[in-house]
């Protein structure tokens, strides 16, 4: 029977299809509710560091920037420096420093985001992990978007609409992230020039 020739039968089939879809969706809801595939969680700093630098050891320290250093960083990064206090992790392997990581906390729209920005030995971006995101998840950037930064040093080209492409519908997240990466690269540049600077007395 060609149901297209019989409107009533066609309509009935559509209703059945709709009922099946609704039932399937309801079943999916139940399954996911009861058996979540994997809890979404933002990684902790320690988890991220261990995954990015496997087998390495870490030294955690707090950096205090002077007012002049904050101004210098802002000038180099072309981004505001919201705090004098920074968390830094030095990464060692076989007694040799192989990288560094910084935590940059900033406001996206009205709420905070924290990024763990890992650098390689030369000061290029190695990896970015989101450790806190208090805005609605819709505004969060995908991990693929962060990959644009990997391997890149601080340069004039490291900006949105240049080497970095924006995020459709999340302009403010992209802007905040770009400022954070530039800020961390500038701080790292400054501290590498004077490794003894900035540490707790």
């Amino acid at each position, binding site marked *: 029977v060609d149901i297209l020739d019989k409107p009533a039968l066609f*309509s009935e089939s559509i209703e059945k299809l*709709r009922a099946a*879809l*609704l039932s399937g*969706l309801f079943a*999916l*809801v139940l399954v*996911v*509710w009861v058996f*979540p*595939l*994997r*809890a*979404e*969680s*933002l990684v*902790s*700093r320690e988890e991220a560091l261990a995954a990015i630098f496997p087998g390495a050891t870490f030294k*955690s320290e*707090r950096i*205090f920037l002077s007012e002049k250093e904050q101004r210098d960083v802002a000038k180099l990064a*072309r*981004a505001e420096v919201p*705090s004098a*206090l920074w*968390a830094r992790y030095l990464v060692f392997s076989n007694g040799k420093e192989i990288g560094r990581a910084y*935590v940059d*906390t900033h406001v996206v*729209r*009205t*709420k*905070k*985001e*924290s990024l763990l920005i890992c650098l390689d030995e030369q000061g290029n971006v190695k990896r970015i992990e989101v*450790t*806190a995101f*208090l*805005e*609605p*998840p*819709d505004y969060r950037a*995908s991990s*693929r*978007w962060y*990959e*644009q930064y990997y391997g890149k040093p601080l340069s004039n080209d490291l900006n*949105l*609409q*240049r080497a*970095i*492409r*924006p*995020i*459709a*519908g999340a*302009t*403010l997240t992209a*802007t905040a992230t770009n400022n954070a990466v530039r800020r961390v690269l500038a701080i790292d540049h400054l501290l590498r020039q004077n490794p003894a600077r900035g540490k*707790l*007395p």
Partner: protein
Amino acid sequence: MKQGFWGLQAWRRGAPLVILLALRIVVLPQGVRAGSEEDGIRTKLQQLEERLKQLEQQSATASSKGSAEAGQTKSPAIEELRQQLDILAAEVEKLRSGERLVEVTSEQVRSMGLAPSAAATYRKERGVSIAGYGQMLYENFKGANERGEPSSEGSQLDFLRAILYAGYRFNDKFVFNSEIEVEHTDEVSLEFAYVDYLANPHLTLRGGLLLMPMGLINEYHEPNVFLGNSRPETERRIIPSTWSEGGFGVLGSAGKFNYRAYVVNGLNATGFSSDGLRAGRQGGGEAKATNLALVGRLDVAPTPGVFFGGSVFTGNSGQGQFVVDGSKLGVRTTIGEVHAQAQIRGFDFRGLYARASLDDVADLNTALNLTGSDSIGKTQQGGYLQFGYNVLSQSSEKMQLTPFYRFEKLNTQHEVPVGFSADPTRHQTFHTFGFEFKPIHNIVVKTDYQWTRNSAKTGLNQFNIGLGYAF
């Protein structure tokens, strides 16, 4: 039904503001408390820093006097203060970070000089999220149409919309988000309000008043996101942006793919006209839900800044309201669209094509007393291509100046049923050229000129200036 000041209608219109106010009253104190805790720790940190300096000065003075005894007794005190300072600096930095869980041991709590209840702020992370946007538009219409006939449209200044987003994160899994809108300064409505269950990175369950995931504008309609003062007409009349309906569904992403699929209440055919489907939106308020609809979207993002995809909405719009020859009209309504967007090194390209097809249009016209060229379009279609370039993209990090051009064609009566005719004014072509300037990413000033042509030669050009903000 007569509605008094405290009538149902007034309550519905005021409900979003009441919800927002309640959220502020109930939830905001947590944020305020978190802020005061942070301030308290900062004060404590400053006190310790001052105390450390004093001790160091005393130590230096004692050393200069050759008092070895004094130096030996003060060194442990300085070391202890250094440790306390380091702990506090770590805690301040962690608190600032907003990270979910800061494990604070009882020992640390004591060392910070905090009562256990005060330290509870560190152990949980919840919070209200507030954001918003707004747009003001000045429109100046040309004094005569294509034929040279005088027009009385004149000019208009309208504060189109002021919006507040209010969201709340209940815990790791449940998130509420909403958009409360004031349009034209006096019309309050709820644009969307939904609860998300974040099952995993690839799957979120969503229920509530949902934005239909169609086109390039409907879900991302902030003025600093789209070029031009006015949204493309295809995304106003065929995809009736901003369009929300009540329902539930799933969304998520996997690699290069993003998807959404919802079951929602259908459109209401009572509002359809020769001008498109826009008035068929129900917006979730006492919406007729005799007929449900399905809407789905799939996007592919091969590389950051570039994506393409499509979406389909299908469902009956009769809602059991029209009976012809003893049977109810279904008025199946299917809207499909394909789109693409690319933003690379200051270039901004967007394109979209949308088509709607409706069943039972002849009978629906009869039921709605529509005759001749007032017929609802049996098929409707439109599309646009848009190109812009931020001329400051390679020289400025903050400012943007983007000239753009958009070409658009629209026909809301592409096909009409036998016995009806098409209104030539519904077959339109638009050329829009303009600039937008963003002194910072959150604020945009736009100006553009739109040439409007139609088959009846009654198109009316207009000049627009707008101001928008988003935070």
